[in-house]
């Protein structure tokens, strides 16, 4: 499992990215993150809700009460227009970051 220090700055982007596909709620999002990374990254509950709180404050996502499923009333989140713009910006930033880090941190073979 990956160290959460390294990945901390990207939690908001993970959630935005998943929400850009469809509206969702807490457990579904954390499950999706776990499954897509094959269990290599697990987002903690408090980390996820810190991110929700931040994203809401910056108006990048909105919360709304979902229907009751399995006896539980869940809070759903949807991405806003600002959220989509921010996500796009973050995606470009990541492409660049990846190139830079690849060049500097890459191991052996290409040298």
């Amino acid at each position, binding site marked *: 499992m990956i160290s959460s220090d390294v990945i901390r700055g990207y939690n908001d982007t993970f959630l935005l990215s998943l929400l850009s596909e469809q509206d969702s709620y807490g457990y579904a999002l954390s499950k999706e993150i776990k499954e897509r990374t094959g269990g290599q990254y697990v987002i903690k*509950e408090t*980390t996820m809700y810190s991110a929700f709180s*931040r994203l809401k404050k910056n108006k990048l996502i909105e919360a709304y009460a979902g229907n009751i499923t399995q006896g539980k009333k869940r809070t759903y989140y949807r991405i806003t227009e600002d959220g989509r713009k921010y996500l796009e910006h973050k995606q470009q930033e990541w492409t660049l970051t990846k190139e830079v880090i690849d060049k500097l941190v890459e191991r052996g073979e290409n040298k």
Partner: protein
Amino acid sequence: MIIREYVEQMFKSVPLTEETYQLKQDMLANMEDKYEHLIAEGATENEALGVVITEFGNIDELLTEMGIRKDTEKTVDHYPTMESDAVDGYIKSRQTMGLRIGLGVWSILTGVGGMLTLFGLAPTLNMPGVIGVIFLLPFLIIGIGLLIMEGLRSRDLQAYQSPFVLLPDLRDEIADRKKAYEKSLAFSIMMGVALCILSFVPLLIGLWTTTLSVLPGIGLMLVLIGIGVVFFVYGGNSYYAFTVLLENGKDPACFEEAVKADKRMKKLNYIIDEIYWPVIVLVYLGLGFIIGGNVWSWSWILFVLGGILEDTVKALFESIYKS
């Protein structure tokens, strides 16, 4: 369930607001979903619990991010949250209680009414006094038994007499149900009043005709009034249930202030609930047996007044207590 306890523990020092309440509910739901999923995948309960708790994270991180400061003085966790099951249960209990108190009063009135009727049949009966009292006893025992039983039961409902958390959605639902109940309440009151008016018929027949003598007239009157009281008390108690829920169920958003506001009044309602009806019964029986005679023909009004004035008396006591 352990997960719920864990989350409660984590949130113990978090001030209760609508935001933090929802947060707690959401996190709890996530953790329960995760737990069930792990169990479904074949994890043991301990393994699943371990994973869920490790993946909870650090509550301080979250609180800092949300700009929430912890409470040092703890008030919040002493107050329960009432969810819709509990609320339904309370309303049902209140209705049962109203019905039984009503039947208790009816039973006492019927006992007394029957006794008077038997007294009235004196010329045709041997020892009408003894037979009358023998008739009275079982009804009196059942009636007083019911009143005491329901008095004790009101203790189980104590949790609803002090402030509890009621979410806005559920509050709206209760307010709607209360409004919908107004029709039934009006019907109960109408029936009660109608029966009380009707009860004068046997009395008048007893007084002014020879078909019935006075005492059986009064006896039948009491039985009819008893039925009327059942309507008053049942309707009143059912309606009162909604009032209690709306009064003591506080919005988590402004819970603290609300709690302070009515902390002092907490006990009062109880005292009234537990002594009010028994005192009325005592006064009724006392008046009848000590003064005797034609007191029976009007003292029943105590029960009717008792039913009608229950809320007013409470409000009165509250305002005295407040000042």
